[in-house]
């Protein structure tokens, strides 16, 4: 199998098809969130829609979640006068059904046992009656509110012509344990390929890794929905740039010497044919020649 074919098969194995268990579970929680908000604010005309990778077409099985956006109309104050009030009131509302973890602008939902349900609820309010730009509350950073535009973000990725490389980049990030948000990674991939997006999947992915390895210090990104107002420097620190550069070079070296399979492992043909994790672990335990017993330093 050629390298490009391997990478394409790898991407195919990462696709979450309509009706799969993961998406059904996400949709069920999404519907429940929508119902809770509609019942709590029956006179509000809340806009519910998908943001994130589901809307952009860049979802991957290894690292997926669902961004459920819920925007109130510009004049609507039923959920709160300020953005912070909306954010806090929706947190309180959802806490009646979920364990809610507040992120920068989103609310991450977990079940009562703390299991991550992979749902981010993103409350916000339209900036005016045109229902295009929105303000989000920000828990961290210099500014308490962020102006953004979901449609611009979605279009920027979905219509970039490089969603396949973005998906591969996300898988590369996950498989290497890189702590980087998806948004700056998407912007970096689009920026690198903006000058040349020709060639096979492998050619284009390598082009991105080569740019990470060699030009990371000079690559710049900006929020297409708010270039002047959304400072992304905290998403791409010098430390992260250094790590991306090192890991990209290591990946190129390892793939060059041993092939992509060495980097990403075997392609799982289908979920049905996968050996259950517990059986893999039992077999791994049985193969251990020198067992060791864990301990704890303090009694």
């Amino acid at each position, binding site marked *: 199998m050629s390298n490009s074919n391997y990478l394409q098969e790898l991407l195919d194995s990462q696709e979450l098809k309509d009706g799969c268990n993961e998406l059904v579970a996400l949709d069920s929680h999404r519907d429940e969130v929508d119902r809770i908000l509609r019942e709590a604010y029956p006179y509000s005309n809340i806009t519910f829609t998908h943001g994130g990778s589901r809307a952009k077409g860049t979802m991957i099985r290894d690292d997926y979640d669902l961004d459920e956006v819920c925007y109130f109309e510009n004049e609507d104050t039923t959920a709160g006068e300020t953005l912070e009030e909306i954010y806090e009131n929706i947190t309180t509302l959802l806490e009646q059904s979920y364990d809610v973890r507040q992120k920068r602008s989103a609310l991450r939902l977990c079940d009562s046992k703390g299991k991550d349900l992979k749902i981010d609820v993103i409350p916000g309010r339209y900036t005016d009656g045109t229902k295009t730009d929105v303000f989000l509350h920000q828990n961290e950073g210099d500014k308490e509110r962020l102006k953004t535009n979901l449609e611009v973000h979605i279009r920027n990725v979905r219509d970039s012509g490089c969603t396949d490389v973005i998906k591969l980049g996300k898988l590369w990030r996950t498989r290497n*344990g890189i702590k980087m948000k998806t948004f700056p990674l998407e912007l970096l991939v689009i920026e690198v390929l903006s000058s040349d997006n020709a060639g096979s999947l492998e050619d284009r992915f390598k082009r991105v890794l080569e740019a990470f390895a060699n030009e990371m210090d000079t690559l710049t990104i900006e929020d297409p929905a708010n270039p002047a107002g959304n400072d992304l420097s905290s998403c791409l620190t010098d430390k992260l740039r250094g790590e991306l550069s090192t890991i990209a070079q290591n990946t190129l070296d390892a793939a060059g010497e041993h092939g992509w399979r060495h980097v990403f492992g075997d392609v799982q043909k289908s979920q049905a044919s996968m050996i259950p994790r517990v059986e893999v*672990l039992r077999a791994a335990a049985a193969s251990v020649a020198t067992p060791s017993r*864990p301990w704890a330093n303090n009694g």
Partner: protein
Amino acid sequence: MSEPWFTRNLGALDELRQTLKARFPTLHVFSDNGAVVVRGMYGVDGASTDRYNLEIILPHDYPHSLPQVREVAGRIPRTQDRHVNPEGTLCLGVPEQVWIELDGDCSVPKILDGPIRNFLIGNGLFEVGEPWPFGERPHGGAGVLEFYKEQLGTDDPAKVFNFIRALAKGSVRGHWLCPCGSGRILRKCHHTAWVALRSVPKAVLEGSATHILAQYRKTEAPA
């Protein structure tokens, strides 16, 4: 403090990088505040199975003492019942036992193939409700005593403490009295255990002696 390993042997760092690329391509070497850190994803059965995001901080005398190993994605709760210390380091085993298993070679590939892999396999099974496949040690001094009982046949804290102190001094000959206090010469008493344990670093032995003292005080303390 002595010179760190990567300046004493200038080729060693590059050798480690090459080894990781060949064997563990999703683990990477970084320099962090004067320390060398290995970070990235480790699959217990290859790149595509049951992965953990690890951080391995190498000691200044690498590979002659055990590195600190952390799981950094929040998958393993930082509780002693999960064999994780409060600062997040994984307790792979009683240090003497790990040292013996590794034959004193605490290089990254050896600890990944041995105690780290064993720990993560066990953790994965524990997560789905199964027991730790190789058993687990009691915490603190009780676990150290259990290990020494397997080596010496006694968990009498005084005897174990004396044995460890003699090991740390490293001055007992085969025809001398065994430090366990049996009255027999070492060669006819705990010679096998002595040979197995005599290369364990002094710092590790001193750590165990402290644990045993604490355990002794705990058991001797009035109710």
